């Protein structure tokens, strides 16, 4: 009887340990280390979403994508650091919510500057939304 309870205890402790280890790994592995599935221009991305949201979602939602475009706006709303890339029309853009490690790069950026940003695509409202984004500032001769 005691051996049976001992076995159950060991199994439960192993499962609990496994759960906490998995949680730790998921929380600490960020997409900065991962390669993007696709590189796409901000204009084309917003155009695709505007034309066919369902298809664009199938292609990009919850995927790491690298977007290149010009900076339309740098926003500090909601105590967040956000770069908005110009889209295919004045009415839309790509909202890139930056990972907190990227904040120090913001003082190097200017409006209309070309830039690459990698992030997780979450979908589209009037703008395409990227979260957990990382900046790749283009060199002057690129």
């Amino acid at each position: 009887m005691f051996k049976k309870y001992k076995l159950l205890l060991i199994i439960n402790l192993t499962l609990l340990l496994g759960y906490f280890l998995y949680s730790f790994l998921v929380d600490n592995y960020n997409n900065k280390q991962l390669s993007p599935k696709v590189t796409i221009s901000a204009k084309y991305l917003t155009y695709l979403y505007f034309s066919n949201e369902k298809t664009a979602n199938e292609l990009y939602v919850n995927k790491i994508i690298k977007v290149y475009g010009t900076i339309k706006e740098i926003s500090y709303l909601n105590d967040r650091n956000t770069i908005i890339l110009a889209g295919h029309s004045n009415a839309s853009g790509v909202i890139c919510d930056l990972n907190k490690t990227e904040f120090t790069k913001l003082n190097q950026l200017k409006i209309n500057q070309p830039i690459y940003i990698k992030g997780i695509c979450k979908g589209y409202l009037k703008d395409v939304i990227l979260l957990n984004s990382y900046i790749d500032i283009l060199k002057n001769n690129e």
Partner: protein
Amino acid sequence: MNKLFSLLFILSVFLIKDSTPNQFIARQGQVTFFSYASVENIEAKNNQVLSIIDFDNDKIAVSMLMRAFVFKKDLMHEHFNESYIESDIYPKATFEGSLENFDIKTNTEQTQLINGTITIHGISKEIGIKTTIIKSKKGIELVGEFNLIVNDFDIKIPPILSNNIAKVVLVKFNFQYLPYEIN
């Protein structure tokens, strides 16, 4: 000459009247929900909520991507989207309401009830949301909070997790609107 001046004056009055914007947009509205339960407290924030106000029709519309809610733990985010909200099937939550008795001309802070329909997880409910409206130099700010009953939206919580998630969730919002020119 006097008639010409009179005509120009009347025209300028109309032009000034028409230049007041009647549509406003917030692209980075913030919505936060709080679940206070005996086992744990959960907080999630969405900083990319879209909202449009149309004062011509006294309407407000809000739309948010459920996938854009950020949790402290990624595992909570996974459970929220895959098990509770099923965001692959119901990717957006929306609210459409009426701005009753709101006066755009006044600069003083107003607290009004916005009545409308909220849709989450494919279920729509009528709701009244107490909202404070503040007019700033740049535009308009809306802040408020309300409670939602999780069961009302057919959100299934596994019995083993029933003590982890509150039956009533507090929702807070803050939208900062700028004039919106429809192209």
